[in-house]
């Protein structure tokens, strides 16, 4: 059984109880939206000299094990990997396998996100190769963590928060292992070509810049130069060629399907109508939507409304899918600024269309920068597992406290001018609108609208939005009215499952402060 450090617990500005110490590092408790002011200098990797790298630019080594050895892999190092290959990724587990072969222990695995196919990490934790994971954990990994079996504490960060943590020196990456769908021997990498093409490699960018050592693993080695390059070979130490970096079928979906669920379609249509009727959908506007069933359907409804009204967007943000690509190709948006690419149409478009631009968590999301794209966007449509009466939301845990999703770009997107949570009012009898969220991931100050199949609730802080939709036919209702209706349908409020008293992970806010705690599930 895991041994967790003893730590004092404090109450943060959101009223949540959080640990002061996480994995031996002193933490700053959440102080409120926009309150925490960082100081000091950014982190930086050691200075290197070209004298130590091959003049012919050929950085190839025979395998991952030798690359890790040359990088000086030791016990307790931090190894990072990235999720642009999503559930199809093979490289992260390949790296752990190689580390185990070398015989090191107590590594921190620092993925940009983990996926169900990486449940093998549990064995590496049991064998001692991995000490703990700092990154999203779902399914079996999530259960392992919330059952208190992990030796260290999990740290859940948003995509922007991960950049911030690396840049601010909260996390020092010893070795970054980057899976590249195309690369040259110098280490330049591209994600939109090759048999394992995935689109953008933005998630690996911070690691390539800030890690002590960078290893590129590719299954499509091309002669120098790899054009275009999303990762600069000048940051790369070694290049490893392998048979396959991932399972193409699980990297991107062949086609993304719009939901056929009447309730979800209704929610999607409400969201689109809200944007139209609130006047947000106008010439030159922008929006972001992911690849969930509701988000896809929303894009499809909005596209029709844009056509009907003769309105064009300046830019849209993905996760891109064929629905965003259609928007671009029909001239209904000038640009797609893409954070990750979900289907084949998205990958093809990014490879061929200069107006389909790969972005990184730095440009899109990093809160400790001189602004970011997320706050420029007019509207964003997100999901949530729970929302409370004050519009605070949870996106990482089930109501029973088990880890369900990573934060992804969710927290960063809340900065948009109009943040919309599109959620069913209940799932399997479990109400989504609750008295208190199990885990706080998004403060209500940044959540403007909750759209359910039973009506649309606007945050009372947004009188401007309430005014904007006055007189429209939209079913605008107070959030508590929807909540009470659903509790009636479900036969009363659900019992709140008892939570353990041992912290097993923390949720960071976009500025690196600790927003909430995940507790061991009883």
């Amino acid at each position, binding site marked *: 059984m895991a041994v967790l450090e003893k730590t004092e617990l404090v109450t943060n500005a959101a009223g949540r109880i959080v640990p002061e110490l996480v994995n031996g590092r002193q933490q700053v408790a959440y102080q409120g939206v926009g309150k925490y002011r960082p100081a000091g200098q950014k982190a930086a990797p050691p200075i290197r000299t070209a004298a130590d790298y091959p003049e012919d630019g050929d950085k190839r080594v025979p395998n991952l094990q030798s690359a890790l050895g040359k990088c000086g892999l030791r016990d307790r190092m931090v190894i990072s990997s990235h999720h642009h290959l999503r559930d199809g990724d093979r490289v992260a587990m390949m790296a752990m396998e190689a580390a185990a072969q070398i015989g090191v222990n107590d590594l921190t695995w620092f993925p940009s996100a983990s996926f169900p196919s990486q449940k093998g990490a549990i064995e590496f934790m049991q064998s001692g190769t991995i000490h703990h994971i700092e990154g999203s954990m779902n399914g079996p990994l999530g259960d392992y963590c919330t059952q208190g079996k992990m030796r260290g504490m999990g740290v859940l960060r948003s995509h922007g928060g991960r950049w911030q943590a690396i840049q601010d020196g909260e996390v020092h990456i010893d070795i970054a292992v980057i899976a590249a769908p195309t690369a040259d021997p110098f280490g330049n990498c591209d994600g939109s070509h090759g048999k394992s093409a995935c689109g953008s490699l933005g998630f690996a960018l911070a690691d390539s810049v800030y890690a002590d050592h960078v290893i590129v693993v590719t299954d499509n080695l091309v002669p120098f130069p790899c054009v275009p390059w999303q990762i600069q070979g000048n940051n790369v130490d070694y290049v490893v060629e392998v048979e396959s970096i991932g399972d193409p079928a699980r990297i991107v979906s062949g086609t993304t399907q719009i939901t056929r669920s*009447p*309730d979800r*379609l*209704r929610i999607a249509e409400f969201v689109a109508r809200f944007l139209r009727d609130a006047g947000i959908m106008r010439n030159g506007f922008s929006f972001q939507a992911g690849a969930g069933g509701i988000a896809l359907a929303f894009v499809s409804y909005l596209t029709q409304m844009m056509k009907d009204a003769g309105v064009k967007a300046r830019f849209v943000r993905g996760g891109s899918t064929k629905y965003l690509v259609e928007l671009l190709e029909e001239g209904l948006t000038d640009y797609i600024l893409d954070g990750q690419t979900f289907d084949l149409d998205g990958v093809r478009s990014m490879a061929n269309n200069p107006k389909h631009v790969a972005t990184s968590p730095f440009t899109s999301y990093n809160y400790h920068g001189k602004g970011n794209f997320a706050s420029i966007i007019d509207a964003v449509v997100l999901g949530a597992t729970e929302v409370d009466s004050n519009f605070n939301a949870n996106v990482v845990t089930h*109501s*029973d406290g088990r880890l369900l999703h990573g934060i992804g770009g969710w927290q960063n997107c809340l900065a948009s001018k109009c943040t919309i949570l599109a959620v069913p009012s209940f*799932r*399997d*009898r*479990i109400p989504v609108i609750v008295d208190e969220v199990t885990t706080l991931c998004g403060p209500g100050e940044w959540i403007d609208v909750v759209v359910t*199949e*039973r009506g649309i609730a606007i945050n009372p802080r947004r009188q401007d939005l309430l005014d904007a939709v006055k007189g429209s036919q939209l079913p605008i209702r107070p959030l508590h009215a929807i909540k009470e209706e659903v509790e009636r*349908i*479900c*036969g*009363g409020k*659900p*019992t709140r*499952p008892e939570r353990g008293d041992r912290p097993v992970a923390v949720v960071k806010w976009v500025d690196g402060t600790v927003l909430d705690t995940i507790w061991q599930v009883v």
Partner: protein
Amino acid sequence: MTHVIERSGTAIGEAGHSGADVRSDVHVRIEIRDGGGLEIQLESRVQPYYGQLIRQQAEEVLDVLGVRHALVQIRDEGALPFVISARVEAACRRAGLGANTRVLPERVSPPSPSAPDQLRRSRLYVPGSEPKYFVSAPLHGSDAIILDLEDSVHPGEKDAARLLVRNALRAVDFLQCERMVRINQLPLGLADLDEIVPESPDLILIPKVESPNQVVELNCRIAEIKADYGVTRSIWLMPILESALGIENAFAIATCSEQIVALTIGLEDYTADLGVVKTSTGAESLYARQRLVNAARAAGVQAIDSVFGDVADMEGLRRWAENSYALGFEGMGCVHPAQISVIHKAFAPTASEIEKATEILKAYDDAHQKGLGVVSLGSKMIDPPVVNRALKLIERARAMRLVP
């Protein structure tokens, strides 16, 4: 295990569904025992939140049904309380217990009673054995919801579906939707009435009607049950004509009961009866549909069209619905909520029709005020039937909230 069967005979009953793909339903298995009280084994997707309530509810239902000693195995996939209650009751009945006892969920206030001539542009079919669709169906804005006990329910599930539909009529908030039930063909449909009528649905659809006698017989049974249970709300009838003979008898059927407010047609069975292929243009059923419209008009009831079955073909649906409106139908059925708005649009008067009708009515008012016998608009004289039609059109537009 033979001794169990010998001792308790048929005293095992199961009802409902569970499994990874099932949502909002529950599977209940009851094995009646001779002693030892109730043993409830519960597995539920919502165990941490509602586990206690589910147990409690099962115990209450069993108590009302007089089940004292039994092994009760519940596998719940997030079923709502009225569904759990119906499934436990169905399992008990299948085990041979509680036949004459009803366990009724709390009643939400039903929508106000429907009028004989109210808007019936769209009626959304909800399979009576699929509880996952029940609570959300009224949200989609159709004029009516049909809880279906007939074709969408497997023959082996009729008894259980009846209890689900009965409970839904009590526990689901139907908002502004008219609450319709399609019962089974007679005589099975008579058994449906026993459960359904006490919950006063607004309208009952009677399938495969071929002669007035069928309706009269059914209506008598409804009246008896209403009297037994003190139901005072009207229960309207909509016969479904689904055969050549039914179409031939359309007028006689439409006029055989005061409770009949509409006639509708079932095209799958009708085309089968004719031995022709059902097409998306409906040419093969044009005569039947026109005959039905005429009979309905003559009888002073509404003519309502069939459904358009291809959910993916929205363009085909639009063409069908517009044609249907042009033939004189006042509405049609929906098999998916996405069809509702297309249908409403097709059955609504157009802006220019409304404008013209408004002008005619204004001209009529002007003439009336001036004491003129002849109404004229511009250089044209307006006949009384034209005024009447304009009046009806505006009334209809008002009911659809197209005019203030």
